[in-house]
């Protein structure tokens, strides 16, 4: 029997992996992938809560609606973020965060 705790544990570990990627890696693209992993960890716990806290035998679909909106907004965020990375790469010829230390364009 898989309990809600197991899903929360897996989701928390996925979040920790994404967080470690953001903190430890110095490549902008990989940092962005870590952000996506953290968003997906939140989605997993939302879907798990939605299934385990049913109302009248139906899952709580409000949680899944939130997941749907998170996925949509994350897709838009990825498009904008990657466009910014491409513009940065054109200006600096690098996507290593330690080479980008000035705010001035």
């Amino acid at each position, binding site marked *: 029997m898989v309990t809600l705790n197991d899903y929360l544990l897996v989701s928390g570990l996925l979040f920790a992996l994404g967080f470690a990627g953001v903190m430890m890696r110095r490549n902008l*693209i990989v940092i962005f992938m870590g952000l996506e992993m953290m968003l997906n960890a939140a989605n997993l716990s939302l879907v798990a809560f939605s299934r385990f806290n049913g109302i009248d035998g139906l899952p709580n679909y409000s949680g899944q609606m939130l997941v*749907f*909106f998170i996925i*949509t907004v994350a897709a838009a965020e990825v498009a904008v973020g990657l466009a910014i990375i491409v513009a940065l790469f054109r200006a600096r010829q690098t996507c290593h965060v330690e080479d980008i230390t000035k705010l001035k364009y």
Partner: protein
Amino acid sequence: MSPILFWIFSLFMLGFGAAVIVNKNPVASALSLVVSFLGLAALYIGLSAYFIGIVQVLVYAGAVMVLFLFIIMLLDLKAEKSRKLNWVAFLGGGALTLAFVGVLAKVLANYPAGKEVVTALVPGENPITDDVRMVGLKLFSEYNFPFQVVGVLVLVAAVGVVVLSKRELK
């Protein structure tokens, strides 16, 4: 979902998630992330959230990761040269991550196991179409306004990407 399948897909997802942050080559990282998201979609389907599982495969494993790979190819990123390791960032990030896992373990140890998972949607019908029908009903009645706002947001993002990608930024 049977516990064996749950743990197989969880280990699958976490293993390839670890490969994302360990790999030196960004292309290998992106492909590992695709496999990790497929494992996550399997977990969603195990939770009987068929619609979210399918959207996860289509949007994340499909569109978003293809966009990542496309940008990696466009920037022509090679595997990172081994630089001098930034020990402050490495140790600080590792300590924060371990602290997070410690807090997680402490919270989950005292957390109630949760109710039984809801298995039947509408009895006697096809669970997949039922799930999609319930999501659609909720989305277009109660969440109709946020849905339209998200449409505007996606339009703004598309316009913003075109503006950012123009050659002359100034």
